[in-house]
């Protein structure tokens, strides 16, 4: 069975390719997939009809009680036959129905086949959760198929409506399933059925929720409104999903659960009322329709109501009647829809007030339709008649329900007559509708289904025999299906229904105005519109009230939650703060005071540069505190980063106004200060409490040991970065790459400049000695010869030092981050001393190349551990003996660190190129005489250096 399901989904995934190659003819090979399901079912007939079950189980998510438990018994066998058989026939029909150049045909066919798989899944699933998964999958497929023409508003609206209604019910059903499953301790229906858990209030709730799912899926009143709207879908979809297969899922579920739940309180009243009401209202509505497809849609709703009554009854006779009608309905309703499709395609309309004389132009189609319609109306000797007989027989003991069923059958006969007459008969005074010829490929699937309905009538006994194990669940019965039971009550009722239907049809015209006024008092569609509108309004109000669009406001709310939440715990919780000493080290106090003063002044500063320097001061102060706390490596990084940060700030601030813009509202300002102080207080309190409440030993306790034995390094912090928590580092450098790319894309407005070549026209080192080759490109007033000399002297030393830091980082202070930052500062020096051309001299590569290489290096090293027999990013040690040098221990994580180094250098280079060089360029363009183009440098390619 799993193979069957996989086959459908596999076929669905290749369908677009097949359609691209073969056009609509691809439907033929694809029809083999559902046909295989039919073949499989036929092959297992004997085993299933003998009361056995085909069972397959595969574990999936054991923690949720979700396994791929598949089980086919009589009921699901019947559904597999219908789903597979009709699915295959409708696919064949598709090959003739669509134009050769139908847009989106590949997508359509793929979803259609996918739907076959989902529907098969619903009927073969034994696990309720699995059933739910497939159930929702059918909803999604239905949504996509109804919305086949997304450019039409009606199509979009119908698709959305169907999806919302069915998934809403589906969600309710899921809750019901979970209630049932949790109480039973298993989600396998076969086990629940074998040992039903005792009832209780929960069961009533669960049944109500499951019934909600059924009502929406099978379009029962009051949720029936989505089905007529769904007729916006192409006709094959209507024939299959909305007549033969998907809407039957609800009926199937009721039939599946009825043996256990039929006696639970609300089950029978609810489903009887919903079913009977739907049957009568749907039939009534069908009589009024002028669109053949809508007529059939309302007819389907009516029939679904009747089926619900039958299968919900929990009685062997009703169950037998229900399954027979299920089969008969699938056969005749699919046929009729296919016929409507043919009429629509070949006559150009499906309006029964326009069509005329079709029976003469397409007699074969007319015959097929007549056959199916006769079955629908319950005319002997068709299967529909057998089913109706069984229905009346089963409900003899329940006169009110019996009356409703007879009335429903009369309505059915009435709208059937209207359908046949409207589609094919001559209309007095109307021209015969012109038609195009009908290809056999369109007619054959419909004919096959209609003939099946005819052929199964005389063999009704055999049908009953094949299905007998399902009604047998409810108890023994002496009733058997047969074409001819002899004269009796059932036959009389059948005749009454037929006669009533014909009478309705004949009398329809005179009483039509009266009929038109007689509608359901409550319209589901209106309710849906109303609810949708109310929800929309509510969403707008809530969003408008909470999401005012002000970033400071959002941040304020977040901070307020921080103050109220953890702050409240601090105030009222059972926590005790601890303070050990005033300071560990007197120097700490000095640094602390400086830091506090700088931070406060930074808030008050009105000049940008002042604020930046003060904030930088707090950064250096923090670095000192790190140092005093025993974290020299962190301190070193902090100092470097702080320096780079100040460089970046200065690069940008030269373009921004010197002062911050004026703050406007004093009141808001005080609120901000108050909130800020509260945040600071809460965080300080948290520090006190958090440290005192540590109970477990730190996870890092044995890191020194691990670092030496498994990371092959002595610098524990570095080993944490490149080995123990290397995934973090990998994530981090990815963020750096993204940030660098983001900076570049913000500054280079259209694209990065092409690769940086060194400028050939710069003075060559020669007799006329220069300190920096690009120094002469700067304006004389912006040059500093001292800086040029110093940079010339120390640049290479700094770069070598950075590489030293990188290599020694594994065993001593340093590492990829520190090394990379040092190298980045070296580049910044070159840029500051010699301008943007000097930067190109120093690093004639594109920053993105460095970033990408670094990331690839890190990832590649991480993957290298796999062939060496480790996990991703695990360190491995390689011992090499080099002549002259001696034994060298290479640890693979050093290469990871090289990746980190490259990324950091790349980031620095990217920042210098964007915020430095490119901004320089933009300034130059602006200041150039006649350079009126202020917007961007990219628009003046001629000026580009």
């Amino acid at each position, binding site marked *: 069975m799993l193979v069957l399901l996989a086959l459908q989904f596999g076929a669905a995934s290749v369908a677009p390719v097949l359609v691209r190659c073969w056009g609509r003819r691809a439907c033929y090979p694809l029809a083999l997939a559902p046909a295989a399901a039919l073949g499989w079912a036929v092959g297992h007939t004997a085993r299933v009809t003998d009361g056995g079950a085909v069972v397959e189980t595969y574990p999936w998510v054991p923690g949720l009680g979700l396994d791929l438990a598949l089980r086919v018994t009589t009921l699901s066998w019947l559904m597999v036959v219908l789903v597979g058989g009709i699915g295959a026939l409708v696919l064949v029909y598709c090959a003739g129905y669509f134009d050769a150049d139908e847009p989106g045909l590949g997508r359509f066919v793929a979803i259609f086949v996918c739907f076959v798989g989902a529907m098969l899944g619903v009927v073969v699933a034994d696990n309720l959760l699995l059933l739910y998964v497939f159930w929702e999958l059918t909803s999604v497929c239905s949504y996509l198929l109804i919305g086949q023409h997304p450019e039409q508003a009606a199509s979009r609206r119908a698709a959305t409506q169907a999806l919302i209604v069915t998934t809403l019910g589906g969600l309710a059903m899921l809750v019901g399933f979970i209630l049932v499953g949790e109480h039973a301790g298993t989600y396998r229906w076969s086990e629940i059925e074998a040992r039903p858990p005792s009832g209780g209030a929960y069961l009533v709730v669960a049944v109500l929720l499951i019934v909600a799912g059924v009502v929406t899926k099978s379009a029962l009143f009051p949720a029936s409104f989505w089905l007529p709207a769904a007729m916006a879908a192409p006709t094959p979809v209507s024939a299959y999903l909305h007549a033969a297969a998907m809407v039957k899922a609800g009926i199937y579920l009721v039939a599946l659960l009825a043996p256990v739940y039929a006696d639970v309180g609300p089950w029978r009243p609810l489903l009887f009322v919903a079913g009977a009401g739907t049957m009568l209202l749907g039939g009534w509505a069908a009589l009024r329709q002028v669109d053949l497809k809508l007529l059939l849609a309302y007819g389907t709703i009516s029939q679904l109501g009747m089926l619900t009554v039958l299968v919900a009854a929990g009685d062997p006779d009703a169950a037998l009647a229900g399954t027979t009608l299920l089969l008969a309905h699938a056969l005749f309703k699919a046929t009729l829809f296919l016929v409507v499709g043919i009429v629509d395609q070949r006559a150009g309309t499906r309006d029964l007030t326009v069509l005329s004389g079709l029976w003469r132009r397409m007699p074969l189609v007319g015959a097929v339709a007549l056959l199916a319609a006769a079955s629908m109306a319950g005319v002997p000797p068709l299967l529909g008649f057998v089913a109706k007989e069984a229905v009346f027989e089963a409900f003899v003991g329940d006169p009110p329900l019996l009356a409703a069923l007879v009335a429903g059958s009369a309505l059915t006969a009435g709208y059937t007559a209207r359908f046949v007459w409207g589609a094919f008969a001559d209309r007095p005074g109307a021209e015969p509708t012109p038609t195009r010829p009908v290809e056999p490929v369109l007619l054959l699937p419909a004919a096959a289904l209609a003939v099946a309905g005819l052929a199964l009538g005389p063999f009704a006994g055999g049908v009953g025999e094949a299905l007998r194990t399902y009604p047998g669940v409810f108890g023994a019965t002496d009733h058997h299906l047969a074409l001819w039971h002899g004269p009796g009550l059932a036959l009389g009722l059948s005749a009454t229904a037929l006669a009533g239907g014909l009478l309705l049809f004949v009398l329809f015209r005179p009483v039509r105005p009266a009929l038109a006024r007689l509608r359901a008092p409550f319209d589901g569609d209106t309710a849906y519109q109303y609810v949708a509108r109310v929800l929309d309004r509510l969403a707008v109000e809530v969003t408008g009230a909470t999401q005012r669009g002000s970033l400071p406001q959002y941040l304020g709310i977040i901070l307020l939650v921080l103050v109220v939440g953890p702050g409240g715990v601090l105030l009222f919780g059972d926590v005790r703060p601890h303070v050990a000493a005033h300071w560990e080290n007197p120097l700490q106090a000095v640094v602390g005071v400086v830091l506090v003063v700088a931070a406060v002044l930074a808030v008050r500063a009105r000049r940008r540069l002042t604020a930046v320097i003060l904030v930088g001061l707090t950064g250096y102060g923090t670095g000192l505190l790190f140092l005093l706390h025993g974290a020299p490596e962190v301190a070193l990084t902090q100092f470097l980063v702080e320096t780079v940060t100040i460089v970046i700030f200065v690069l940008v*601030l030269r373009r921004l106004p010197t002062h911050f813009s004026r703050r406007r509202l004093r009141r808001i300002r005080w609120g901000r200060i108050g909130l800020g102080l509260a945040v600071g207080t809460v965080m300080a309190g948290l520090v006190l409490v958090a440290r005192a409440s540590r109970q477990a030993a730190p996870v890092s306790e044995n890191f020194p040991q691990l670092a030496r034995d498994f990371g092959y390094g002595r610098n524990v912090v570095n080993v944490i970065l490149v080995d123990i928590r290397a995934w973090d580092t990998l994530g981090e450098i990815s963020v750096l790459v993204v940030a660098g790319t983001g900076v570049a894309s913000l500054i280079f407005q259209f694209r990065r400049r092409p690769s940086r070549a060194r400028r050939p026209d710069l003075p060559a080192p020669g007799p006329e000695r220069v300190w920096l080759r690009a120094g002469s490109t700067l304006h004389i007033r912006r040059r500093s010869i001292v800086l040029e000399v110093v940079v010339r002297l120390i640049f290479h030393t700094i770069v070598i030092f950075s590489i030293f830091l990188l290599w020694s980082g594994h065993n001593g202070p340093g590492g990829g981050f520190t090394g990379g930052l040092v190298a980045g500062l070296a580049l910044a020096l070159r840029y500051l001393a010699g301008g943007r051309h000097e930067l190109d001299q120093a690093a004639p590569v594109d920053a993105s190349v460095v970033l990408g290489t670094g990331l690839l290096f890190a990832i590649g090293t991480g993957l290298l551990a796999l062939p060496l027999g480790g996990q991703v990013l695990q360190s491995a040690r390689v011992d090499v003996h080099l002549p002259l040098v001696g034994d060298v221990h290479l640890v693979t994580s050093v290469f990871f660190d090289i990746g980190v180094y490259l990324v950091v250098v790349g980031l620095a280079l990217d920042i210098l190129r964007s915020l430095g060089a490119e901004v320089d360029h933009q300034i130059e363009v602006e200041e150039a005489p006649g350079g009126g183009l202020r*917007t961007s440098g990219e628009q003046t390619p001629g000026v580009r250096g």
Partner: protein
Amino acid sequence: MTPDVVLVVVVGVLFATGAILLMERSLSRALLGVILFGNGVNLLLLLAGHPGGVPIVGITPAEEMADPLPEAMILTAIVITLGLTAFLLALAYRSWQLIGHDEVRDDPEDRRIVRRAERDQVSGPDDSTTEGPLAPDGFGGLDPEQVDPEPPPRRFDGPATEPPQPPGGTAGPR
């Protein structure tokens, strides 16, 4: 292990000042707030571990070492903050380039929803209220959702309207 007063006060002040600046409209001020916040968070992380000697095997005995894990985390955090700073500064620069200042304005989309709420409207004409086919592209002219109600952002177009801000210091890198 318990922390000492100085560090507690420093963390509190960094968070307080950071929060105040963070809630500013000016992007560069908010960025300074982020940096102060970041320093505070890093100190907080540091305080989560115990102090001690340099965490290098062979220099400090394992039991006297400072906790290396927070140090590694801080190291990561510092460098990330650098990337964030660069990105936000680029944003501030771009904002200045486009609209002449680096203030974070209210989100126009959010403001539009607020206006709709004030006028008791729905979120937009949807399929459930629209009748008839829309423009061929499905969301064409009839769908106001697709029409940008705000005027396009003004490009900075020269000294004629508003003089460009004098560069802070020299125009060159020094």
